[in-house]
C-alpha cells in the first residue's frame, strides 16, 4: 500500500514539474503541451479518440486471438517433438530479431490498408513470448509427475490435459501479460505505416498538423488500453490459477 502511494506521489511530482516547466517557460503547445492541456484534450476530444481507440483495440484483441491460435499448438508440438523444437527454434528467434518496422510496409503491401495487416503485426509480436513461456511451463513440470501419470497409464494427450497444461498455466499467463503489453506496439506501428483508422493513424495525422496535444491524448488512451488489458489478464489469471 505504501509503495502505491510512493508511485502516485512520484507521478504527481513529475506532472507538476512538467506543468511548471511549460507554464514558466511558456513552451508552445506544438512543441510540448502541458499535462493539463493534454488531460483536457483527452477528455474533451473523447468523441474523436473513441472510434479510433475502438479500431486499435479490435486489432489488438484479434492479434492476441491469432497469436494464441498459433502459439498454443506450436508450443504443444515443440514440447511433444523435441526434434521439431530443435529444428524450428532458430527460425523463431530469427523472426524476433527482425524489426517490426521492417515488416510493416511488407504486410501492408500484402494485406492492404485494412485491419488484417495490423492484426498480423500485433500477432507477430505477441506469439513469441506466449510460445516461449508456455513451452517453458511444459518443460518445467517435474519428471516424477510425468512418471506418476505414465504409471497410471496416461497417454500424451491425457498428460497434457491433466498435468502439463495446468502446470504451465502460470507461465502462460506470464507470457500473455508480456504479450498484451507489447501488442499495442504492433498495432500502432501497422497503423503508422498505412491505415485510415486507429490511434496510430490519429497520431500521425495530428503530428503532421502540429496538434501535439492530440498525439499525447492518443498516447494516454493507448496506455490506458494497455493497462486495462494487463489488468484483465491479471484478473483472469487470479480466477483460473486459484491454487497459487
Amino acid at each position: 500500500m505504501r509503495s502505491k502511494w510512493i508511485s502516485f506521489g512520484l507521478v504527481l511530482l513529475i506532472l507538476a514539474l512538467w506543468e511548471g516547466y511549460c507554464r514558466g517557460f511558456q513552451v508552445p503547445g506544438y512543441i510540448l503541451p502541458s499535462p493539463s492541456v493534454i488531460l483536457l484534450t483527452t477528455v474533451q476530444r473523447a468523441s474523436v479518440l473513441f472510434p479510433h481507440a475502438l479500431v486499435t483495440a479490435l486489432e489488438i484483441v484479434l492479434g492476441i486471438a491469432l497469436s494464441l491460435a498459433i502459439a498454443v499448438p506450436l508450443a504443444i508440438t515443440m514440447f511433444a517433438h523435441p526434434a521439431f523444437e530443435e529444428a524450428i527454434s532458430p527460425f523463431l528467434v530469427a523472426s524476433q530479431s527482425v524489426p517490426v518496422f521492417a515488416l510493416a510496409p511488407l504486410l501492408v503491401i500484402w494485406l492492404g490498408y485494412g485491419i488484417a495487416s495490423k492484426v498480423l503485426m500485433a500477432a507477430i509480436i505477441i506469439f513469441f513470448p506466449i510460445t516461449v513461456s508456455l513451452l517453458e511451463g511444459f518443460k518445467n513440470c517435474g519428471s516424477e509427475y510425468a512418471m506418476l501419470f505414465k504409471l497410471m497409464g496416461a497417454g500424451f494427450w491425457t498428460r497434457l490435459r491433466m498435468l502439463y497444461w495446468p502446470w504451465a498455466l502460470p507461465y502462460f499467463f506470464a507470457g500473455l501479460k508480456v504479450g498484451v503489453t507489447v501488442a499495442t506496439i504492433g498495432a500502432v506501428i501497422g497503423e503508422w505505416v498505412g491505415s485510415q483508422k486507429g490511434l496510430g493513424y490519429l497520431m500521425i495525422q495530428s503530428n503532421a498538423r502540429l496538434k501535439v496535444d492530440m498525439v499525447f491524448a492518443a498516447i494516454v488512451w493507448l496506455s490506458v488500453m494497455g493497462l486495462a488489458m494487463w489488468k484483465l489478464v491479471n484478473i483472469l489469471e487470479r480466477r483460473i490459477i486459484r491454487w497459487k
Partner: protein
Amino acid sequence: MLEICEVSKRFGDLQVMEGFSLTVPESGFTALVGPSGCGKSTLFDLLTGVVARDGGSIRWKGDEVPDLGSLAAYMQQKDLLLPWLSLFENAMLPARVAGEGDARSDEARALLKHLGLEDFAHYLPGAVSGGMRQRCALVRTLMFGREIVLLDEPLSALDAITRRSLHAVLLLLQTEFRKTLLMITHDVEEALLLADEVIVLSRPPMTVRECFRPKSSKPRRITDPELVRLKEHILSELEAESDAL
C-alpha cells in the same frame, strides 16, 4: 510372488547391478535398506520400466512380465499431489485417467474417510499439513487398484510424530488391503517396525547382502530386544558398506 531375476544395469562406467535377484512374497511387506547411491531407486525405475534394464527378467505370480508399469502403484518421498486439485480429486486421479471417473468416487470417499481425511476432501493440498498430503498420496496409491505397491522413502520428508501415525496406515496396506509392498527406506527402525523382511543391499554392483525376518508380531515396538539387536546388526552392516563406497 514377485521374482526379480538376474537384473543388470550399467550407467556409463558404473555397473549399478549385475545379476541382481530378489524374491518378494505375495501380500508381504519387504523393506530395502542400503547405503546411499547403491541403486535402490534405480531398482524401482527398472521395475516400473521408467529406465530400461540391460538384462534379466521379472516374474509376477509365475508369469514373466516386461515390467511392473501396469501392475504396481508407486509412491515416492514427495507426495506429488497436483496443487490445483482438491484432495478428493487427487485421490480420484488414477480412476479419472483410466476413464472410470464417477464409478469409483464412492471408493475414493471411503478411503479418504478411512485415513481420516473425510473433512478435508475438498481442501487444496496447499491448505493441509504434510502428513495429510502424504495420507492423500496413499489413498491415490490405493486407487491405482494394483496388487503391488512400491514405496520409495514415502515418509522420509515428514516429522517424527507424523511418521509414527503413518506407520499404522502403511501397515493397513498390507493387513487390510492385502497389497504386496516393497519399500525403500533409510530408516532402519522404520524397516524393522513395518516389514516382514528387511533386505540389506550392498554397494554397486548391488546385491542382497543379508536378509532379516523379525519374529515379533506387528504392531511392533522398537524397544523390543529382538529389534534392538537387529537394528544394531543392520546398522553395522550398512556402516561397513558405506565405508567401502
